[in-house]
């Protein structure tokens, strides 16, 4: 079982987390097309390499965060809490 570095709690067993899918951006619901919206819902890149994905620390701090993980080696090179992203944007 891989260890996942929660930005809050540090490295923890992956079984404490729920995988919440590849990170994606929600299209503007009033301007989107069916193609774009369904790509957001269903089309995943699933690369053999670096990917950005969302995780939920279900039995820990219950924070959602994004992690950059290498799907072949399971190395995680960066994690971010979404709130932190927001602060850096403001």
């Amino acid at each position, binding site marked *: *079982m*891989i*260890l996942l*570095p929660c*930005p*809050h*709690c*540090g*490295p923890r*067993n992956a079984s404490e987390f*729920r995988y*919440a899918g590849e990170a994606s951006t*929600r*299209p503007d*619901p*009033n301007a*989107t097309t*069916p193609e774009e*919206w369904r790509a*957001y*819902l269903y089309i995943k890149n699933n690369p053999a390499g670096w990917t950005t994905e*969302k995780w*939920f620390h*279900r039995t820990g701090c*219950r*924070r*959602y965060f994004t992690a950059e993980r290498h799907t072949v080696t*399971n190395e995680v090179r960066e994690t971010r809490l*979404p*709130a932190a992203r*927001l602060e850096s944007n403001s």
Partner: protein
Amino acid sequence: MSRGALKTGKSMRLGRQPGEVLDRSRQFVFTWNGRKYPAFGGDTIISALSAAGESVFSRSFKYHRPRGLLTASFLDPGCNVQVGDEPNVRGAHRKVEPHMAASAQNAWPSLRFDVKSANRYLERFLPPGFYYKTFMEPQRLWPLYERVLQRFAGGGKASPDAPHGYYDKRYAHPDVVVAGGGPAGMGAAVAAAEAGARVMLVEEEHELGGHLRWGDEEDLAALRRLGEEVARNSTIEVMTDSVVTGRYDGNWVAVSQRSLPRVEERLIKARTKTLVVAPGLIERPYVFQGNDAPGVMLSTAARRLINLYAVKPGERAVVLTANAEGDAAVADLERAGVEVARVEDARNGGDIGRVRGGQGAREVECGDGARIECDLVVTATGWTAPTSLLNMAGDKPFYNPAAARFFPSRLPEDVLATGGIAGDGSLDELLEHARATGKEAARRARGIGAALRAGIPQSTDGEEAPQDSPVTIPDLPVNGHLELFRGRTHGIVDYSEDVSSKDLVAAVKEGYDSAELAKRYTTATMGPTQGKLETVNAMAVIAEATGRSMEETGATTWRPPYAPITLGALAGRNFEPVRYSPMQPWHERQGARPLVAGAWIRPDHYGDPEAEVRNVRKNVGVIDVTPLGKLDLRGPDVSELLNFLYVNKWSNLEVGKVRYGVMCAEDGVILDDGVTGRLGPEHYLMTTTSSGAAGVLEWIEDWLQTYQPDWRVHVTPVTGAYASINIAGPKSRELLARVAEGVDLSTEAFPYMNVRTGTVAGVEGCFMWRIGFTGELSYEIHVPAAYGLYVWEALMERGADLGVRPFGVEAQRVLRLEKGHFIVGQDTDALTQGFGAGISWAIKLDKEDFVGKPELVWQGERDGYFRLIGLQPHDGSVAPPEASQIVEGKTIVGRITSSRFSSTLERSICLGFVAPHLAEPGTTVTVQLPNGERITARVMEHLAHYDPEGAKARG
């Protein structure tokens, strides 16, 4: 020498041996196939039987050939036995206990005379793939084939009545796990511990020591010294009769521990910082005709029998040796009084042609053609490196033809190897390597531990990564060894699966010419030994048959588990947490029939659900709805959040009002529903379905944290904090009025779809909602959980003269179906988008945004979706089972989602999904029942069959 003299229960027990594991002060009796046998403490089942002169312990898997002892260890393929109701016990490993009842497996009617052994005369008619090819056609005979094949399948018998037993699990976080407790493992563990590491030392056998245990005086003395060193280090946790069965990502190591008293088996999940792999080497059998006859054994088996169990392996032996260990076996045999008739030294061209003998070895034909009578054939032809854990760590071990075995090639930072798997050399050289490896494992563990701790945000300051330099690990010498796999005849390669070298050659000829294909076709390496004895021989035979080298052929993949784990250990203790409401003791006293609903145990009914329905319609009923999901929402932006989560509008909800809402996911599919009330300007209570409670909370947290982190909302799950009771029926107001204080219950002051906070039965801080799932006048009250039982009892007591009765989930299902309320997940499924469920009135597409909005916009434009409708069979006495199909000819055009007999309406009523062209009220549809019969039903005006105008709930 005649065979008869050897086989009359003559004792083969030797005098006391220096390294024996026997407790001769403890002698007792056990049974084997119903007959009594003596044993000493420390004996294995097989050593005790061998001491009593027995030599046949099972029948082989396919040809039912008699099998004896081969390795005298856990792996021994011919020594799987049945003990009581436990099948497939490793008889050469399991210690025998007083009164143990052991018996042979795979033999019928008896071990001596097995009718199925006729198979072995059919050998040439049982080629690889025989079963696949023969039992194919015609298909109608498959059930017969199955019965025949089951008869012939090997293995013991598992009793369906066997108790589960006590199995356990443990999580551990050692610095270093050492897999293998031979001299190298012991040396590595001691060095790691002395370098400050917390160490787990895991050994498959019952004692530490590996090959030193069956060695000479010098070996035993070295073992004593190592044992003392291990014992001196309190930071070494020694686990014997335990195996590291797998290594996974992040050095997540599984250990099967069998040595605990009163625990059948414990699965340890260890997150170790470093893993030292020190399993030693496994002696490899030699392939020749008759190599599976009882009496043919490996040199380690002979040495173990003599030195550990004080058992004389035979009377007259021929030994084939290619190495020092084989030479040592010759010496041991002579010391034990076995007549060594001939030593064939492979290093000088010696060989064995074939062994003859039905029930056991009788005669050996040597390499030079000489025939020698004997009852024991010992082979020492080389070693297999059990590289499983290395392969699992990503290593690709390489084959060294000069040493005739595999070696590690490139290991990750957190895995090290020592001992025989890494090289040869004297004991001192091995120990020097092991100690350096152990010290280095401890050093790397410090670095890995520091890196892990640095990943914890709170402790980033302070600890620096240790700056120590790597320990120099000396190279081990590698002894040359002949490549000895198969002799001049064909014999058994996989003893467990009865696969011969001839079978493998045939498989190659049929085109299965890669190791992985030949393995699957012949099932070689797929039996209980899982390749540890046979994988290299199989590889060599395939290489020979294809004309390729060993390197080109390659070994089959080693996969976890390295050793068998019981299903009991994987399951662990029988933990199945359940949730009860505070009113559970009352329900039990009333004889409620329990219903498992997710984690909750709820009353299904109290004996007569129909009467419960009637009482709600006529008087008043109360139901325990505590499992209802409850979320406390606070903050200035709650109404924004609700507007976003639900398809309907929430911005105009006044304090004191409640509203029913439906949530859809981003794909427009209905996710959950429930009622949410505004308790104060910035305080709301949301209810969800019972099964959706946990999921909805995670879903809300997701939106709040990742999509709208600037919304100021605090979400607290309070499902278990409140006991929830629904009071339903025409007399519910009268009943609540008797217990509620400080709240005016008149319709004018407390109308339908309102919420009030007040005191119930003296309990302050209760929420009262005037809502109804049942269609009657009803109140749902949420009481601080500690008072739930008290308030429930107060309601029952104070309402006795009103006819108050409890009702359960079944009655509620009927009541809500009469009222046409759908249940998410019952009447909707993973394809039901909002408009299909008849909630068009709730979906507000003019909102700026909400979850799933685009899909609902498009669904509304599409208009071709199935619709949820109310249905009544024309024959009101028939309630079609739920999931019955609605059909047009042979086409499925819908289905029944809910169906019950309504005692209120005295007829059957349903909800169902139908294609759009059938959704018009008054349409007649055809319902196909599971028995094939078809009935007709009418599509109704409303989902509600009872009081569609809702006058009663509002009254």
